[in-house]
């Protein structure tokens, strides 16, 4: 299952709306990096509003894609992490400390704009 990646000006917007299996997560990682490369996007918002489980593997893939995008010169913000997901992540011992986050898509775009100082 491929996750659609939308382009809006200099940004890429992704809303994950499926129950992520490992293969789809890895595929998404590759798709996003190649889309950043092709489009020259400077900012990315990954919205997780519809995601009700993030286990250690998915957390690693998401954390990695933020670092990888950063290496390529694009800032990523994760938005919409549900309360239950935030609680389970901490139980798992996963803090995602270097990962920029925001409450929702709107706040995420504001954060990107601030980080990129546009």
């Amino acid at each position, binding site marked *: 299952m491929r996750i659609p990646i939308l382009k809006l000006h200099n940004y890429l917007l992704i809303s994950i709306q499926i*129950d*992520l*299996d*490992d*293969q789809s997560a890895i595929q998404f990682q590759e798709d996003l990096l190649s889309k950043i490369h092709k489009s020259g996007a400077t900012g990315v918002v990954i919205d997780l509003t519809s995601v*009700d*489980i*993030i*286990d*250690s*593997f998915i*957390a*690693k893939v998401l954390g990695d894609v933020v670092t990888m995008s950063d290496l390529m010169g694009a800032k990523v913000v994760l938005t919409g992490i*549900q*309360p*239950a*997901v935030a*609680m*389970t992540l901490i*139980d*798992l*011992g*996963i803090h995602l400390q270097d990962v920029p986050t925001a409450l929702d898509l709107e706040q995420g775009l504001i954060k990107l704009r601030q980080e990129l100082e546009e």
Partner: protein
Amino acid sequence: MEFQSCVNINKEWDIVGARQIGRDFARKIGFGTVDQARIATAISELARNIYLYAGTGKICFETIEEIDHKGICIIAIDNGPGIAEISKVMEDGYSTSGGLGAGLPGVKRLMDDFDIVSEQEKGTEIRAVKWVR
């Protein structure tokens, strides 16, 4: 113990299947949203361990009913290589597969009771219980 259902873990997609069935099972027992997420996440970690380290195995769910409380027991069974040093795999950050090493210690924190029995070359059985609050 009244009711049991099992999911075989043979391929990667079964990890998703197991956690969806487990979450449904937990909802029917009466767990709230946050505990459903905890239970589903624990199942995901246990199922992935089976898939990664043993290749195949199964995850079973049981309803536990006692006089004053109810709960779910998740049982993960495989006939894989077993775990040589259990104390090691229960450490945060220890992984032999390049993962975060959050799996088993994470499951222990997500659930209320946690028990692991492993014999080398025979397999591993993990039982994890969560009580409805």
